[in-house]
């Protein structure tokens, strides 16, 4: 419990900043919806102005931006990127921060097993991500109801989108953690987490653009594509299971690697 609390407190300001920023993103986007809803023809023109490959690459086809649901789908693709970066940062830094800051000697020389350290840290990070998620749930429904311009909308796709965050966050948290344990020493968290997020994002965009399904399979941005979830009001379960499998492998792999890890010495 002491490690959990310590970890949670250390990350609290970061959680508040991320949650606030994503809430602001949702607010700003949805406040612009008015302009889109008022003029469906303009939206059509706007869409046509973009090359189609670009729209496919960013997963923005099959989205009608003049409906509140379609517009929410658009903004959710951006929220996903933020969530991915936040989760990947926490994941990559989870245990590696002790080695980057050389505090591993302090923590691991205490009477506590590596498994317990890892579990405490993982639970603290999940709690942090859950807070961000809770903020997004509340903001999404609150701002939709404020800015929907009297439109009615299906609640199910929104709920499915928001629920997808759980697996989405866990994917980047655990894969980030695994990567941090596969390298000898993490010197800086950001290049690794950014590389992971944008690597997978570009992989998905590129895969969509050239119509290469095998590339999309690898990316959670495709597993939880907002345009698919809104269009079908369902998850693509076969792809979701790939994300779930990646999480399980990453968690098991991380525990195994961490319990065998030789902690580098500061001198």
């Amino acid at each position, binding site marked *: 419990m002491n490690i959990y609390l310590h970890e949670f407190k*250390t990350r609290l300001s970061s959680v508040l900043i991320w949650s606030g920023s994503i809430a602001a993103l949702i607010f700003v986007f949805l406040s612009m919806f008015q302009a889109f809803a008022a003029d469906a023809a303009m939206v059509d023109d706007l869409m046509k102005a973009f090359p189609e490959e670009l729209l496919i690459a960013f997963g923005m086809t099959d989205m009608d931006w003049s409906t509140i649901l379609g517009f929410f789908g658009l903004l959710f693709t951006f929220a996903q990127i933020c969530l991915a970066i936040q989760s990947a940062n926490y994941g990559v830094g989870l245990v590696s921060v002790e080695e980057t800051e050389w*505090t591993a000697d*302090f923590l*691991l020389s205490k*009477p506590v*097993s590596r498994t*317990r350290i890892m579990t405490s840290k993982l639970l603290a990070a999940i709690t942090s991500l859950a807070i961000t998620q809770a903020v997004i749930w509340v903001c999404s429904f609150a701002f939709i109801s404020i800015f929907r311009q009297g439109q009615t909308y299906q609640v199910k796709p929104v709920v499915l989108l928001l629920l997808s965050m759980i697996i989405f966050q866990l994917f980047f948290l655990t894969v980030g953690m695994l990567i941090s344990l596969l390298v000898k020493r993490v010197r800086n968290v950001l290049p690794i987490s950014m590389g992971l997020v944008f690597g997978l994002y570009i992989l998905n965009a590129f895969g969509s653009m050239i119509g290469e399904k095998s590339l999309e399979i690898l990316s959670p941005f495709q597993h939880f594509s907002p345009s698919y979830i809104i269009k079908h009001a369902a998850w693509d379960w076969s792809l979701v299971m790939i994300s779930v499998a990646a999480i399980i492998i990453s968690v098991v792999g991380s525990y195994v690697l961490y319990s065998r890890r*030789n*902690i580098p*010495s500061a001198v």
Partner: protein
Amino acid sequence: MSIIEVNHLTKYYGKSRGIVDISFKVEEGEIFGFIGPNGAGKSTTIRLFLSLIYPTKGEAKIFGKDCIKFGPELRQEIGYLPSEVFYYEGMKVLDLLKYSASFFQKDCTKRMHELSDLMELDLKRRISDLSYGNKKKVGIVQGLLHQPKLIVLDEPTAGLDPLMQHKFFDLIREENKRGATVFFSSHILGEVQRLCNRVAIIKEGSIINIQDIKTLQKDNYKKVRVTADDLDEKRFKVKGVTDLEKENGSISFFYKGDINAITKLIGSRKISDLTIEDLTLEEIFMHYYE
């Protein structure tokens, strides 16, 4: 039962050597010195005790139990002070010490404050604002606040001013009297000589000698210096004499053997001055590393 029992402990980092086939025992109540130059494997050995790293071969037992398998349980009774101290920069000293204490089953609050007072540590300051020496004091307090049965010190005095070093040594002696066993790694021979009962000398990953400090000094060489007019150093080229040197009318050499033989040899001539003394640990040490 030995407090520490090391059997054929070996550690390679990939292909580079850490330590090779080390075996020794540390008994209860000892202050055991572990000396060697940088890179000899002192820290490697200590990090193996704390299962910060895992052995390639062999085992280390602490309180009779394998230090990997029973690591968390054993560390309840181990206090560790690393050579380089790093703590969570954003924390206040008091919060860090409390966090440290929260890992132990016993209540450490009283001892924590006693030690902080003794070390003149300001509990309200942030870790990031502390000088290296002050961080080292934090290290000493967090390493000893649970009154461990085994204290493991890895070059502990670096960064401490002489006054604090003195206090620190007194503290370690006190802990030792209380019943704690101390494993003291250092490359500063003077402090090992002052503090330790027994010493192991490690060179390039292997232990080359383990001895009582007193026997190490007594049973071995004597340093002899003779001053006299018209002295012929060739007279002293006898069995047991090494490092014979002549300067400014005096002759000095190391001698190992029957002390009567050498005094008889010296006494057969008229001399103006004579000193016979034990080698310092430094000189013994240099001898091993030649």
